[in-house]
C-alpha cells in the first residue's frame, strides 16, 4: 500500500511538471513573436532583393539598373551634394549623402510597387498592422510613425524606419533612413 502511494505521488508530481513545462514552452513561443523593432528591421525588399542604407549608390544601380532620374543640390546638412536617384518604375527614391568622392545611400523611400519591410508591411497595410509588427513607434503624428534606433552620439540623429499614413490609417509610403552623423564635417 505504501509503495502504491509512492508511485502515485511520483506520477502526480510528474504530471504537474509536464504541465508546467508545456506552459513554459507556450510562453516562449509567444515571446518570440512579440512586436518590436531592431536594427534587423532596417531593410526593405523588392523583387526578391533586399536593400539597405549606408551602401554606395553604385550597388543600388547595379541591382536596379540605370533607368533612374537624377537630381542634385548642394547640401545644407553635409559638405557636398545631396543626390536623389529616382526609380519610378520600381516606385522608390534613393537619397545619398557625400562620402568622400562617392555617395552613400542615406534614405530609401518607397511609394509604390511590391516593396515591403522585413516584417511584411507594404503599401496598403494598416496602422494596426504596423503596430502589431513593430510595437508602439518611437515618435508619431497622425501622418507618420517613426521607429528609431538610439543614435551613436548626442549630435547625431537616429536610424529609423518610418511609415506615412492617409486619413484612414492606411500606409501610403514608407522608408528607411540611415543614422545622420552631425557635426563631423
Amino acid at each position, binding site marked *: 500500500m505504501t509503495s502504491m502511494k509512492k508511485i502515485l505521488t511520483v506520477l502526480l508530481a510528474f504530471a504537474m511538471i509536464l504541465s508546467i513545462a508545456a506552459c513554459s514552452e507556450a510562453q516562449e513561443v509567444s515571446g518570440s513573436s512579440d512586436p518590436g523593432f531592431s536594427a534587423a528591421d532596417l531593410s526593405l525588399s523588392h523583387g526578391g532583393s533586399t536593400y539597405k542604407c549606408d551602401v554606395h549608390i553604385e550597388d543600388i544601380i547595379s541591382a536596379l539598373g540605370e533607368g533612374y532620374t537624377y537630381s542634385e543640390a548642394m547640401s545644407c546638412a553635409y559638405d557636398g551634394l545631396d543626390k536623389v536617384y529616382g526609380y519610378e518604375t520600381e516606385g522608390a527614391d534613393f537619397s545619398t549623402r557625400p562620402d568622400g568622392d562617392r555617395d552613400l545611400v542615406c534614405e530609401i523611400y518607397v511609394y509604390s510597387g511590391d516593396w515591403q519591410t522585413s516584417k511584411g508591411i507594404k*503599401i496598403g497595410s494598416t496602422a494596426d498592422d504596423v503596430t502589431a509588427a513593430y510595437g508602439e513607434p518611437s515618435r508619431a503624428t497622425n501622418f507618420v510613425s517613426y521607429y528609431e534606433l538610439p543614435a551613436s552620439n548626442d549630435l547625431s540623429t537616429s536610424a529609423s524606419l518610418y511609415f506615412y499614413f492617409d486619413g484612414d490609417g492606411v500606409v501610403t509610403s514608407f522608408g528607411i533612413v540611415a543614422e545622420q552623423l552631425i557635426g563631423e564635417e
Partner: protein
Amino acid sequence: MKRTAAILLLLAMLFGLASCGGGTSASTEPSVEASADVSAAPSAPASVEPSKIPSEEPSEEPSEAPSVEPSAEPSEEPSAEPSEEPSVAPSETPSEAPSEEPSEIPSEDPGVETSGSIEETVAVGTKTGDDVLDDAVLEVIEDVCSADASLEDNLGALFDWMTKNLTYRNVTVDLSNGYTDELVIDIAKTLITTYRGACEHNAALMKVFCDRLGAPAVCVSGDFKNESGAWVEHAWCICEIDGAYRHIDVLYGRNHTHGNARTMFLVTDDKFSDTHRWNAEDYPACE
C-alpha cells in the same frame, strides 16, 4: 485509496492542461491575429498591380536573392552618368531677392489677457489659419514653453526642440514666387507633421513659431559657407524681438556648429555674416 489517488492524478493532469491551454491561447492569440491582419491587409493601393504583391510571409529573404548591403570594399565608380541634368545647380551668388523693398514684418497686436492657458499667455501671436499646422504648433508650444519664461527663453526652447527633434531631408522647394503665405504654411506643416525637411522647411517652421509667440518673423533666402568654403543656397529666418531684429538658423545650428546650435539663435548681422550672406537690402537689419 487507489481510487482517490487516481482521481487526484486525473485532476492534476486536467488542471495542468486547462491552465496551459488557457495560457497558450491568451499569450499567442495576439501574435497570430497580428500575422493574419498583415496578410489580410489591402494588398496594394490602386496604383499597384495586385499580381506584383508577394503573398508569402516576407520574414525570410530569398536564398538566391541578391542582397544589397554595405560592402567593406569600395566598388568601382558609377558606370553611368546621371540620366538627367541636376534640377538644382549650386549657386555661387546670393539668391535672388524675393522683393525690391525690404520685407516688412507685420507688428503683433495680441490683445489677449495674460492669464490662463498657454494659448492665452505664451502663444499670443499670429496663427497661420491652417488648423492642422496651428494645432501642431500649439502642441509643441505647450510641451516646451512656459508662461513664466521670457519671450526669448520660450523662443530658445522652441529652437532647441527643433534642433533635437527634426532631421534633414534633401527636398527641393520651389521658391520662384518667394516665401508666400501658402508656401510657408505648406512646408512648415510638412516639417512639423513628418519631422523631416530641408532648410526652407526649418526656416518656415521657425517663422511660424516666432509669429505664434508674438515675435513676427520673415524667411530669408541666402547662402551659407560650408566646410569646404563653398557658398550653398540656404534659408533661415529673421525675427523681431524686443524691438530688435535677429537671425535664427535652425538647420545650420544643428548641422554645422558641432553641438553649439545656440550660436545660431538670435544673431546679429555682424556675427552672422561670418558664415552667411544675404541681400541685406531685402531684409531688416539685425544690429
